[in-house]
């Protein structure tokens, strides 16, 4: 353990941050200040609070931009910088320093989070204009941005965990923002439970790291991973994957994302599309040394990614709620990123590439969906939309660009990033390459179908509006961010994809991209086949949802459709596998807690019956049975020790 730690210390030290980079802490501090002022400032800040929050978010973006410009001026190997903040936990030989790692990977995230985040702040000014509690909303948004930046800037798994919990907290607060609606509050609960399972994975992974390496900062773990015990590294990888699955809504912890759409739409765009849900991908890429050292864990990542991308795509085909369809699509696209991240050095850069482009086009589409809802009295049922292209021109065009980007229309962002992932999935020999390659390719076809379905049902075809709606274009605060994001959806891919910028930018962090990898099919054939499938998907959607009339009531549908509408029965499976045994365990423990049958029944009754029954039951409680347990405990304690001795 010690030898590994010293080894880590000896290898490639990241230089301390200087110049503007030494102010990287401002990235977290500014939005945190915004959150503090708004949440503690009370009603005084009602008037100017939202603008202050927007300003703080943009200020963080400016700091990020400056750091980026300075970083550009340095050669690739010297761009990373370590910013020591303070000594956090000095527990004996084990020390944790709180610090930030400003490198190419974290800065890519910083720019995405602050830029898209700031745009969404601006959009929210319009979207939440009439909400009486919008100060609180902006406070939470700033809190989220601060936590997300802490997550990506942390230099150790421990500090990352702080940010990880922070974004989780902000996410519940925002999902449940309109908590007067009980079903919304339930949604917050569900997100919360799935995330607890994921967080558990992350915390166990950190524990294993501590046992194996004696340290939890990225440098030591990276340096130690290739020398450590294989089983330990695999366990670490799998636990990290569990954490990633919880946060990124990957199979089998994906059920919460659809329900999380209960939150206000800007929240869905920022947290549940562009940034927080991609934290799992960040975690896997950041832990690349662990995954590179453990092929087993890597394979698990690919399998999870492949399953989720198909799962999300299938679910997306059946949803009539525009936000839930987009949520399913998010899940599926993150599946692509996971798959790429699991492929190893071939895929890391593309995972991040797709993450960035997805951040733009998906956020853009969510904002578009919000704009549609804004004009349609907050309805979300696409069977009640249709023909909106004429009344909401800006929304139509910007959404259209996002749609073309996500389905991989040649030239737009999604084409460059997704095509590369599909190609990478075909790299290798044997069944792996075929299975994962085909899964990714078929997924692209289904994506084209469900996204086209969504687009056509909303903007094309006949108007199926309910009588009381009068759709109108949204105000400028909302349309301008949509336009900016649409431009990004169109151009970001071509700017950094085919030019190789993204690969060379990330190379010092995630390792060299192998040259001339061998794909089981020629690259051109893969591209053409994918485009063919995409075209087929669009055509099918056009026939069913533009050319033919869309019924306003959902038809019964095939068994698969019904299953997809129920999220492929994920909730039922969860309930059967996890909830029921849990309840039984608790009940039997309550029983064993020496209250006997009466106690168990009483305990259940008290759950529903309230205080009075509990008090009555207590006054019939028996000290003698308590004493009996103690006696039994002593006898067993002593007896067992005697027997062992």
């Amino acid at each position, binding site marked *: 353990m010690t030898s590994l730690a010293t080894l880590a210390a000896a290898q490639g030290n990241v230089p301390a941050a200087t110049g503007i980079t030494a102010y990287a802490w401002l990235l977290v501090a500014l939005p945190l200040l915004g959150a503090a002022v708004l949440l503690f400032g009370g009603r005084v800040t009602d008037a100017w609070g939202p603008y202050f929050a927007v300003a703080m978010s943009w200020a963080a973006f400016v700091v990020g931009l400056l750091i980026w410009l300075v970083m550009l001026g340095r050669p690739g190997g010297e761009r990373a910088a370590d910013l020591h903040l303070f000594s956090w936990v000095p527990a004996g030989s084990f020390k944790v320093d709180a610090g930030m790692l400003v490198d190419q990977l974290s800065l890519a995230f910083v720019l995405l989070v602050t830029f898209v985040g700031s745009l969404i702040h601006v959009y929210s000014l319009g979207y939440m204009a009439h909400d009486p509690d919008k100060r609180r909303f902006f406070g939470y948004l700033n809190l989220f941005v601060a936590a997300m930046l802490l997550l990506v800037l942390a230099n150790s798994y421990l500090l990352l965990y702080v940010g990880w919990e922070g974004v989780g907290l902000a996410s519940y607060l925002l999902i449940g923002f309109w908590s007067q609606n009980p079903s919304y509050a339930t949604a917050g609960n569900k997100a*919360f439970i799935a995330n607890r399972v994921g967080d*558990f994975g992350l915390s*166990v992974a950190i524990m294993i790291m501590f046992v194996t390496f004696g340290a939890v900062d990225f440098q030591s773990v990276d340096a130690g991973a290739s020398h450590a015990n294989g089983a330990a590294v695999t366990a670490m990888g799998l636990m990290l994957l569990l954490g990633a699955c919880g946060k990124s809504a990957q199979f089998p912890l994906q059920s919460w994302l659809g329900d999380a759409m209960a939150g206000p739409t800007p929240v869905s765009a920022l947290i549940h599309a562009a940034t927080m849900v991609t934290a799992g991908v960040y975690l896997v890429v950041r832990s690349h040394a662990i995954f590179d050292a453990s092929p087993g864990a890597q394979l698990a990542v690919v399998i999870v990614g492949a399953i989720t991308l198909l799962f999300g795509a299938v679910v997306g085909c059946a949803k009539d709620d525009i936000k839930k369809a987009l949520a399913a699509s998010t899940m599926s696209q993150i599946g692509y990123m996971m798959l790429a991240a699991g492929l190893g050095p071939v895929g890391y850069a593309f995972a991040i590439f797709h993450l960035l482009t997805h951040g733009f086009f998906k956020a853009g589409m969510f904002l578009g969906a919000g704009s549609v809802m804004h004009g349609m009295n907050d309805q979300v049922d696409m069977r009640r939309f249709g023909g909106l292209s004429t009344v909401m021109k800006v929304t139509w065009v910007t959404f259209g660009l996002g749609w073309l980007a996500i389905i991989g229309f040649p030239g737009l962002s999604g084409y460059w990033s997704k095509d590369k992932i599909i190609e990478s999935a075909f790299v290798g020999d044997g069944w792996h390459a075929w299975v994962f390659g085909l899964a990714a390719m078929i997924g692209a076809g289904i994506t084209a179908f469900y996204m086209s379905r969504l687009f056509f049902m909303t903007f094309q075809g006949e108007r199926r509006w309910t009588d009381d709606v009068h759709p109108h274009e949204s105000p400028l605060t909302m349309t301008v961010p949509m336009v900016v994001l649409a431009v990004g959806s169109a151009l970001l891919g071509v700017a950094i994809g085919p030019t190789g910028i993204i690969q060379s930018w990330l190379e010092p962090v995630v390792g060299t991209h192998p040259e001339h990898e061998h794909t089981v099919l020629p690259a051109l054939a893969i591209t053409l086949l994918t485009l063919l499938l995409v075209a087929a998907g669009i055509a099918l959607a056009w026939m069913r949802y533009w050319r033919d009339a869309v019924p306003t009531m959902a038809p019964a549908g095939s068994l698969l459709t019904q299953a997809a509408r129920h999220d492929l029965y994920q909730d039922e499976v969860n309930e059967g596998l996890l909830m029921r045994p849990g309840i039984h365990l608790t009940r039997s423990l309550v029983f064993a807690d020496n209250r006997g049958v009466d106690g168990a029944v009483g305990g259940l009754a008290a759950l529903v019956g309230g205080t009075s029954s509990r008090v009555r039951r207590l006054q019939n*409680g028996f000290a003698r049975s308590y004493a009996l347990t103690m006696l039994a405990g*002593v006898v067993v304690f002593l007896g067992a020790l005697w027997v062992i001795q």
Partner: protein
Amino acid sequence: MPAVTVSFASALPAAFQATQVDYKAIAPMLVVFGGALLGVLVEAFAPRRLRYLVQVGVAVVALVVAFVVLVTVSVHDQGITLARAVVIDGPALFLQGTLLAITLLSVLTMAERFGGEGPDAFTPMGASVPGSPQEAAALRAGLATSEVFPLTLFSLGGMMLFPAAGDLLTMFIALEVLSLPLYLLCGLARRRRLLSQEAALKYFLLGAFSSAFFLFGAALLYGYSGSVYLSDIAKAVTTASGDLDGLLLPGVVLVLVGLLFKVAAVPFHSWTPDVYQGAPTPVTGFMAAATKIAAFGAILRLVYVGLEANRWDWRGGVIVVAALTMVVGSVLSVTQTDIKRLLAYSSIAHAGFVLVAVLAFDRLGVAGVLFYLVAYSFTTIAAFAIVSMVRQGGSEASHLSQWAGLGRNHPVVAFVFAFLLLAFAGIPLTSGFTAKFAAFAPALAHGGTYGVWLVVIGVLCSVITAFVYFRLIVLMYFTKPVEGVVAEQVSPLTTVAITVGTLATLVLGVVPAQVLELAKSSSLFLR
């Protein structure tokens, strides 16, 4: 105290010599006991309208003076004194200092009047039958139970002696001195008095039961080693001839059981939820925080000074107890619907976490225990103080359903409580995280395979309890407020207690270095 004389007699040389007393070392305890005795006189002679003020004043002054004496005089005068009955060393001083600080906060919460004439949590006349005309008359006459303050000081005196006891009899006496006033305090709740009296009786009966175990175990250990001094027992364990070996293990187990009862380890925990629920809330906070500190201090001394040599014989049992304590405490907290019972089960789970550190058998393990106790006790005091504030129709809103939507109407109170819950859950940047870290790290490093397993169970249980706390936070923020539930305006007394507790929780989470260092440098026992 005939028992003491007997024990002295065995160690006595032929010619009687007066024992040396190091007054500087034991001065903090003397101040506390002196304050308690003064409180008794005040109760007897001070005019009724002044009594409350004088009692609170005496208690606060005694605690502050004791603390000052401890940090200025006693730290420089460590040693074994009073014929080896009292050992003032690093762990003892660290825990005594913590106990004084915690008790000061507890006294502040106990003194809260909520605008009434006497301490609000306590019945005006403890001796009256609940619901009787006598009680009503006492209420009309504006009587107040101000004797709770000397009782608290007496109990504190016992607690301070408990981790400093150098022999089993002193330890037993300390145990009784700390327990007897607590039994009384538990039965003095102003509202729901039957529940409160029942809690006191249960606590008393079961406490007596466990004391009997302790005493019997002490007798067996005396039989085995010929001495009640921990250091002599330790010597006997390593050098014993083997004739009386059969007495050792039962003796160890029974003494341990007596102490594990006080920290509410499973299966000796049954009293905890009932007593925590029934006792007046400030007393519950005092018990949860201070008793745990004192009892773990005693366990540490017994285990590290007296029984370390044969730990392989009995360790297995305590490992099982630790695992059970964590699992039962955290799993049962899931089904609780009463906030005080919930915190009771949570305190059971926390006792399990501390036991994990105890079982590390390393100096860092001791430091981990010391730090955990500081962190947990400050958080606990603040949490119970908030529980006593949240009310519906004048009495505490202890049912969880009444806490729904508290965040809407009382954002600050709910926020502070949520923060404290996060600390209980062990989320980073709170003291709970640093404490779990300090407790688990030595267990991983020095505890062997069992240590690793215990830590795995501990982390799993933390996740379960985190679920409970998060659910409560969700309840406070995401559900409709209940009509009539308010967080009462409190006097500066409670405000100070909550503020200090919360700040300690934050500071120990963000910059714990100094306290960790202090705990580490205080982790060496004198033998």
